[in-house]
C-alpha cells in the first residue's frame, strides 16, 4: 500500500493547475494514498502544507503571484535517456563456461542453449557437456536463477556426470566459471526429483529474487514407452562467494 506518489505533489510549490480537474476516481485514489500512507514512504514535505493552493480549480491571485516570482521546479530524478541511440541488449551476469561439483568428480564445459522448436530447452547432445539457459541470468547476476542443464545420459555418452546429481545431499560446493574467468561458488540447498507431468518449471527459471544456481537433468523412473525419464532432477544452490 506504499504510495510514493504521495510525496511528489510536494515538489512543485505554487504551481496550481490551470483547468486541471482530477476525476473523482483520481481524487479518491489520492486521498486513499495519502490517508493510508502510514506504511508508505516519505512524510509530506512541510512546504506542501504552507503552499497549499486554493481548493478551487482556478488559480488564486496569490498562487499566480507566487508562480510568477518563483521559477517552477521540475522533478529532479526523472530518468532521461537519448532514445535515438542504439539499444544494446541488457545482460544479467556473465555466461557460464564450466561447472564443477568436486564431491561428485563432476567437471563439465558449459555452452549457451536456447529454446528448441517444441518449446523445451535445447540440450547439448553429449552428456559430457552442459548447457546454460541463455535467456535467463548468467553467473554472478544480482537476481534470479542461473540454469545449467545436461543429459543424464546420451547416445554419445550413456552415463553422463549429471546422472549423479541425485546423489547430492545438500551442503556440497558447486563451482561455476564464467566467460571472464571468474569462479562463482555455490552451496547445494536442495535436491528434488519431480515428475515432469506435474512439474511447474516457473520457480526454477525466475529472473528476480535471490540469485540461485539451478542444475537440471532427468531422472526417476525410465518410461519405456516414452523412451524418456518421467522426472527431472533439480538441484538448487545458493551463492557463497566468487573469486
Amino acid at each position, binding site marked *: 500500500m506504499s504510495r510514493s506518489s504521495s510525496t511528489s505533489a510536494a515538489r512543485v510549490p505554487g504551481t496550481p493547475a490551470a483547468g486541471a480537474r482530477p476525476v473523482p476516481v483520481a481524487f479518491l*485514489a489520492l486521498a486513499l494514498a495519502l490517508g493510508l500512507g502510514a506504511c508508505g514512504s516519505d512524510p509530506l514535505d512541510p512546504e506542501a502544507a504552507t503552499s497549499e493552493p486554493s*481548493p478551487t480549480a482556478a488559480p488564486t491571485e496569490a498562487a499566480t503571484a507566487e508562480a510568477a516570482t518563483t521559477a517552477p521546479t521540475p522533478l529532479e530524478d526523472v530518468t*532521461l535517456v537519448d532514445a535515438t541511440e542504439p*539499444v544494446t541488449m541488457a545482460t544479467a551476469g556473465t555466461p557460464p563456461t564450466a561447472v564443477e561439483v568436486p564431491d561428485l568428480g563432476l567437471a563439465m564445459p558449459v555452452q549457451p542453449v536456447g529454446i528448441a522448436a517444441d518449446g523445451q530447452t535445447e540440450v547439448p547432445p553429449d552428456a559430457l557437456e552442459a548447457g546454460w*539457459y541463455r535467456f535467463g541470468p548468467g553467473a554472478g547476476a544480482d537476481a534470479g536463477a542461473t540454469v545449467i542443464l545436461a543429459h543424464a545420459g546420451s547416445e554419445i555418452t550413456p552415463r553422463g556426470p549429471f546422472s549423479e546429481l541425485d546423489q547430492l545431499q545438500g551442503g556440497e560446493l558447486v563451482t561455476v566459471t564464467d566467460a571472464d574467468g571468474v569462479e562463482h561458488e555455490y552451496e547445494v*540447498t*536442495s535436491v*528434488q526429483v519431480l515428475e515432469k507431468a506435474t512439474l511447474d518449471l516457473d520457480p526454477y527459471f525466475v*529472473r528476480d529474487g535471490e540469485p540461485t544456481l539451478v542444475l*537440471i537433468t532427468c531422472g526417476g523412473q525410465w518410461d519405456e514407452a516414452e523412451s524418456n525419464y518421467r522426472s527431472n532432477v533439480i538441484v538448487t544452490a545458493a551463492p557463497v562467494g566468487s573469486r
Partner: protein
Amino acid sequence: MRLRTSLTLGLGAVVLAASAAPAFAAPEDAQLSVLHAVPDTTVDVWVNGDLTLDDFTPGTLAGPLELGAGTYTVAITAADAADDSAPVIGPIDLDLAASTSYTAVAHLDADGAPTAALFTNDTSATAAGEGRLTVRHVAAAPAVDILAGDAGVVTNLANPDEATLDLPAGTVSAAVAATGTTDPVIGPADVPVTDGTLTVVYAWGSLEDGNLALATQTVAAGHSAPDGVPTGQVQVPQEGGVSPILLVGGVLLAAAGAVALSRRGSVSEGAERDAA
C-alpha cells in the same frame, strides 16, 4: 493533518505530479514514460499543472514515472514557460490504469502538426525464447511498411498507429519504407529483441524536412519458463553395469532390434526431498 493536506491537494488539483522514485513504487502503480518526438523544439512538460520535465529535448525518453491509477492532464509548453496556460500541445487527459505501462509521445501528425498520443505497452509474458517488438508511426509521413529482419513485416502502418510482433530473441534489422516499397527511408538499424522484454521502435520526424529517424525504448515484460527440460535421451546404465564399449555395442544392437539397453534397472523414483 495528513488527510486535510490530501484533501486540499486533491481539490486544488495539484495532484500526483509524478513520482520519480521507483524504489518506493507501489506494484499497482501505472508506469508512464514520455517520448519527445517533435523535431527541433525544446519544450516543458506539465502534469496536472506541475512542471515535470524541464527543457525536454527532441529524441529524449523520460521515465518511467510511477503514478497511481487515475486521470492526468498533460500539457506541453514552450521551454521556460511560467505555467501551462499556453500549451503548444494539449492539454490532453491521460487515463492510466493500475499496473499498466504507457508511453506518452509528443510527435507530429501525418501532416506535420504537433500533437500527442498515449500508447499502452504490451508487457504480457513473452513465450520462452521470444521477445516482443512494437513499431509506432509518429512521423510526419504517409503510411509506411516496416521491415524487421526476415521474420516480421508490418505493412501500411499509418500515423499514429502501432503494430506488435513476437519474434525469436535476437537482433533484427529494422527499416522503414514507404508502403509498397522496400527502399528504406529510415534505417536499416539493428534492434535487439530480448526474451522477456518489449522493444518499441518509433519512426519519428518529418519526411518533408528530411529528418526522419528511429527512436527506441525498452520496457520490461513478463517471461515464460521453457515447456520442459528434455534431458533424458537414453536410460542411464547402472554404475559398473556395462562397460562403455559394450554400451556402444548395445546401441548398435538396439538399432538392430535387440533390447540390450533395457535390462538396466532404473533409478528408483524418489519423492521430493529437500537436502538442506
